[in-house]
């Protein structure tokens, strides 16, 4: 009880038990324990508690029967303790219970309220164990130390029935264990806990090294470990939490870290176990603990790699120590050196340390090989999991020494952190541009994350380039301009696209020098520096460092230079640096956008250009490249527009050169996410050029053109222009490029948007047999292609003929299969398309056969409101066109309840779609009955106050159809739905009038509704509506007025004759 309550139960801040599944099952277990206690263990049940359990009960005197003295509202039990005190005492609302027998009885008496009673009891007696057994026993129980001899406690206790007390103690202890193990069964922990523990142990070791320590302390928030290895409270384990750490770094505030199956992140500050709040995530999630620490503590990040190399190359903790000592000596030696050299120490140290390692431990290459075998080391560790960290490692060490191997282990933490590191380096290698694809959101959301500092890994030997570069940087620092230029040229000879060289330049302080050169007057030095920068800035970390050092400002300044080569190089460097948000902002803030736009002025369409003009073209190309990089954030797009960039880009769009066109179209398609650009592209006649370039041989160019069309074709006129310039056919032919997924995504996107115009579909696409190709693309494609393909199919399916073709090509089945996907964007399109297809009877038969309706229906549970509404819309034609739809709907267990519950949504689109679906469902009387049982009437009535016309239309329709059952008409009236409906007639939307009139007609069949309507002045607008051309509308309005009139007549008759 005690343990399970403190560890497992989830308490609210007010000290209440949360209503969670975990708590519920905990309570139920406890309840059955208490209920059966007195029958199973009669003697122990008699034991009187040290202190009474007191709580406010909902029970009254009337609930108590025999065995109790009842006087007024107070109750006392017959049973008394040795001192004559009653064991149960009730003076409402407080009840005091002093033995398990009375507790059991009370629980039995409480009957169906027993859970609430127990809950109240626990909530008000969090220290129940102390009260029952006394503090000494409770202590032992909390510690769960089964081996402690409880007998000696009994001696101290002046107690009565010591035997029973001990028995009771053991009983409670057992119950605790059972409870916990039961609850744990419900939780599955998937993460490799051993690896995690090793990490943490390694970190702890890093704290214990005096002045050289990397962290001040690392501790768990809880010393208690569940049998599954987790330390988080049970109710948090459900969310995947494993344990919480408090890490005290040397340079920043304490870090409160949650280790969960999803990764590692900072929490709101869980300082010790039992915290009630602070579990929320407050940082990004990291793949491994080291990365998180490195990102939070610069000191740690700076030193860990050195340490890591030490730890990695040294077999045990002992040798780590030895190593650190030697570093210390190194330090002392260095102190005597001149101050001048101090700044280089960081590098020197790492080098020396490295050399040191190499000297002492020559056979390190072999260890590396052996390191691969470390999983077996891990297995050994798992065996000794329960022993403490130190024991663990010494044990392993012994084993290893026994087996003769020098070291099989790499540093423990490198194991589990490996995947994280790998993924980050992969990320670096993917060119940022390759990931920038279609859809508006991509430009902002696929933002390159700023990465944490990463030094050259010193676990491998530093490459020879490192030392050469270090030497060159020295010459750069001490050379005049001639030497500088020569050195820069020498540096350019390295493979600067290689990460080792890039990081070497940074790590030996080369970046500072290169950036300083940008502020000199020496053109040649600036050119050389930029030539290097434009290459090494392909590395994410270099870019960040350049921006951190203020290099971007200098580069932006160079854009004003009269030297064209310089301008071009500066722009090109900006293009490669400005791949992350902060850099782009810096470019804008220092006026870079305007300067870049100015670079675009050049003559392009002359047949032969002078050398000077050619240089201008090159400058413009680089300017376009830079703008392309910068155009990935909204403010820059705006800045480009304001600087007059659009017409200039439009002019460059006529260039015959691909290398010019790619950045220009790239910029345009990036900016086309802005309304202003879409309009400009249309009005400045760029659509024609975009279409022309669709026919290019360059796939990248084709892709950007298609993307631009994709974004611009939201507008109807643009769609027509694409058709006019014969852009549809090249788009269709791009569908054959099955291997270039980005191109495919762009092309399908463009086709999707173009197909929104029925003319495009009817006149052009049909003759190109697009549907067939599109259906083929429904399988084995990445999601961004699928979204567009399905979207296009949805638009095509607005034309009846297309529906048949989709069926004939076998498109229904893959579509239905896609319903079980997870991507919300895709699901919205799929449901829409399935819905459109379902308007065809034959299609519907196939959908039904494939169980498509159930799939669509289950999407109502999707968390995304867009998916919910789209699914609900799709259900309408499904229900309408399915054979025996009533039966089909009923067969979906829980389906009706689900859809009724969606009426509680706050999203108008969801509500409208659900109302529409309910209107369809309610056509079946049996289903309407079920809907009514689930309380559809009050929910619909509650929505009537809306002002959204679309919702009004479908709501009125749903109300109209739901009237047809039992006393629903009257219920709607009672729920106050009638008066708001009358107001709908004032709406300007004719469709609202129609469904409202129908609903009013149905409602008017209830006399009291007629009275309300009349009071609200319904007759006048209805008479007006009777004049409508729509016959059903006329009829409904007239019917309603008739019903009102009939009531009035009947009323008068009643007055006259009675």
């Amino acid at each position, binding site marked *: 009880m005690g343990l399970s309550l403190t560890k497992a139960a989830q308490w609210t801040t007010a000290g209440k038990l949360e209503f969670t599944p975990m708590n519920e099952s905990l309570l139920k277990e406890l309840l059955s324990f208490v209920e059966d206690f007195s029958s199973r263990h009669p003697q122990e049940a008699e034991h009187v508690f040290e202190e009474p359990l007191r709580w406010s009960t909902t029970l009254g005197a009337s609930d108590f029967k025999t065995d109790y003295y009842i006087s007024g509202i107070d109750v006392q039990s017959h049973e008394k303790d040795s001192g004559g005190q009653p064991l149960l005492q009730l003076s409402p609302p407080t009840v005091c219970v002093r033995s398990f027998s009375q507790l059991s009885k009370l629980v039995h008496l409480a009957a169906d309220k027993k859970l609430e009673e127990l809950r109240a009891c626990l909530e008000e007696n969090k220290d129940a164990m102390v009260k029952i057994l006394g503090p000494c026993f409770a202590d032992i129980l909390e510690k769960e130390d089964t081996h402690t001899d409880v007998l000696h406690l009994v001696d101290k206790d002046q107690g009565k029935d010591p035997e029973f007390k001990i028995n009771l103690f053991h009983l409670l202890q057992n119950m605790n264990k059972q409870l916990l193990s039961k609850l744990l069964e419900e939780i599955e922990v998937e993460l490799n806990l051993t690896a995690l523990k090793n990490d943490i142990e390694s970190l702890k070791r890093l704290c214990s090294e005096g002045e050289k320590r990397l962290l001040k302390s690392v501790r768990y928030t809880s010393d208690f470990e569940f049998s599954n290895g987790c330390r988080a409270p049970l109710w948090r384990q459900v969310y995947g939490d494993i344990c919480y750490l408090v890490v005290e770094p040397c340079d920043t505030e304490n870090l409160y870290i949650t280790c969960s199956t999803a990764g590692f992140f900072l929490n709101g500050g869980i300082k010790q176990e039992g915290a009630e709040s602070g579990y929320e995530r407050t940082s990004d999630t990291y793949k491994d603990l080291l990365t998180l620490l490195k990102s939070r503590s610069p000191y740690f990040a700076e030193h860990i790699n050195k340490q890591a190399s030490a730890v990695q190359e040294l077999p045990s903790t002992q040798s780590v120590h030895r190593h650190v000592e030697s570093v210390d000596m190194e330090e002392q030696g260095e102190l005597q050196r001149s101050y001048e050299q101090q700044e280089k120490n960081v590098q020197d140290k790492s080098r020396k340390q490295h050399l040191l390692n190499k000297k002492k431990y020559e056979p390190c290459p072999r260890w590396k090989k052996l390191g691969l075998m470390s999983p077996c080391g891990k297995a050994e560790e798992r065996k000794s999991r329960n022993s403490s960290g130190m024991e663990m490692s010494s044990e392993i060490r012994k084993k290893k020494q026994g087996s003769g191997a020098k070291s099989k282990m790499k540093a423990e933490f490198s194991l589990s952190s490996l995947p994280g590191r790998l993924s980050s380096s992969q990320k670096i290698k993917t060119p940022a541009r390759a990931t920038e694809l279609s859809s508006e959101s991509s430009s902002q959301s696929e933002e390159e994350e700023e990465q944490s500092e990463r030094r050259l890994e010193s676990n491998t030997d530093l490459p020879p380039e490192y030392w050469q570069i270090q030497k060159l940087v020295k010459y750069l620092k001490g050379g005049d301009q*001639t*030497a500088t230029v020569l*050195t820069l040229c020498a540096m350019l000879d390295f493979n600067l696209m290689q990460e080792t060289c890039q990081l070497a330049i940074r790590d030996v302080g080369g970046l500072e020098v290169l950036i300083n050169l940008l502020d000199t007057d020496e053109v040649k030095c600036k050119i050389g520096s930029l030539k290097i920068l434009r290459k090494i800035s392909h590395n994410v970390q270099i870019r960040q460092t350049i921006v951190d050092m203020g290099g971007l400002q200098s580069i932006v300044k160079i854009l004003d230079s009269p030297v064209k080569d310089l301008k071009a190089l500066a722009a090109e460097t900006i293009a490669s640096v400005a791949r992350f948000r902060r850099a782009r902002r810096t470019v804008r803030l220092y006026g870079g956008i305007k300067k870049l736009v100015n670079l675009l002025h050049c003559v392009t369409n002359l047949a032969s250009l002078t050398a000077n003009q050619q240089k201008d073209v090159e400058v413009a190309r680089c300017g376009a490249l830079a703008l392309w990089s910068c155009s990935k954030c909204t403010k820059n797009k705006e800045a480009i527009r304001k600087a007059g960039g659009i017409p200039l880009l439009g002019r460059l769009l006529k260039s015959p050169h691909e290398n010019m066109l790619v950045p220009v179209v790239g910029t345009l398609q990036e900016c086309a996410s802005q309304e202003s650009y879409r309009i400009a592209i249309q009005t400045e006649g760029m659509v024609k050029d975009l279409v022309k370039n669709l026919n290019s041989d360059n796939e990248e160019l084709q892709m950007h053109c298609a993307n631009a069309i994709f974004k611009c074709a939201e507008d109807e006129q643009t769609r027509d222009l694409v058709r006019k310039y014969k852009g549809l056919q090249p788009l269709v032919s791009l569908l054959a490029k099955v291997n270039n997924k980005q191109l495919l995504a762009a092309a399908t996107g463009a086709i999707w948007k173009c197909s929104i115009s029925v003319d495009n579909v009817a006149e052009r696409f049909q003759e190109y047999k697009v549907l067939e190709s599109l259906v083929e693309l429904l399988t084995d494609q990445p999601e961004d292609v699928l979204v567009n393909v399905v979207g296009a199919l949805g638009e095509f399916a607005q034309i009846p003929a297309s529906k048949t073709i989709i069926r004939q090509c076998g498109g229904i089945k893959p579509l239905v299969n896609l319903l079980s996907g997870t991507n919300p964007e895709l699901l919205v399109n799929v449901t829409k398309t399935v819905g459109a297809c379902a308007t065809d009877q034959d299609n519907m038969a196939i959908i039904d056969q494939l169980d498509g309706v159930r799939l669509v229906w289950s999407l109502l549970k999707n968390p995304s409101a867009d998916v919910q509404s789209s699914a609900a819309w799709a259900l309408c034609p499904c229900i309408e066109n399915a054979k025996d739809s009533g039966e089909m709907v009923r067969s979906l267990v829980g389906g009706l309840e689900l859809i009724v519950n969606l009426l509680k949504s706050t999203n108008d689109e969801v509500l409208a779609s659900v109302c529409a679906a309910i209107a369809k469902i309610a056509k079946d009387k049996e289903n309407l009955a079920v809907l009514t049982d689930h309380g559809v009437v009050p929910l619909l009535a509650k929505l009537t106050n809306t002002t959204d016309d679309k919702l009004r239309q479908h709501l009125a329709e749903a109300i109209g159809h739901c009237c047809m059952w039992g006393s629903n008409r009257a219920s709607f009236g009672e729920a106050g739905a009638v008066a708001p409906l009358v107001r709908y007639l004032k709406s300007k939307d004719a469709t609202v009038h129609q469904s409202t009139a129908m609903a009013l007609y149905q409602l008017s069949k209830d006399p009291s509704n007629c009275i309300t309507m009349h009071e609200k002045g319904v007759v006048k607008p209805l008479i007006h509506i009777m004049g409508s051309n729509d016959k059903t509308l006329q009829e409904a309005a007239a019917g309603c007025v008739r019903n009102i009139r009939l009531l009035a007549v009947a009323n008068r008759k009643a007055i006259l004759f009675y």
Partner: protein
Amino acid sequence: MSSLNRKLIQTLAETISKQVDHFNKTEVECLIREFNVLLGECAASGRAVNGLDKEKFRSILHNNFGMTDDMIMDLVFRTFDRDNDSFVSLKEWIEGLSVFLRGTMDEKIKYCFQVYDLNSDNYISREEMFHLLKNSLIRQPTEEDPDEGIKDLVEITLKRMDHDHDGRLSFSDFEKAVKEENLLLEAFGTCLPDIMSTEAFEQHVFQEQLVL
């Protein structure tokens, strides 16, 4: 200036402008005038003049083109002074400036090579490079061999530019290296004006004088 003199200048300009690629007749005329002005300044000091002497020429390079390195300026003078008579004559002046101000890449490569080829043996040797670069690095007194850095730099550069691996730079080595990387044009010292001073000088000579 007499009309006779003017006539003379015009005829002279006519002839010279046919021999020089990058200047038209008017520009040559301006250059002749400028030469005469400079010569006049020399003559004022009371010596007989056949052309611009080294002293005067160095002051021009320094004042107009921002050059500071005495050694390089001497080398530039030597390159201008084709007939090695220690004076830059009018013809040498105009021909030299043609490359100096407006030369094509090929012309500039040739010019720079001549500048750097100290002994005019058509090779730039390791020693010549060392000589040219000897002041280009700050010497660190702590180092055992203060010239180590420069020697190393020479080796790096030689390795990069010496395509036929004969331990010295022939003209074709130099040409090839510069074509690959334009920055290497003035590899061993700045001997060409930058774009700013070029423009300033041309404006000074061609436009201001025309107004006169």
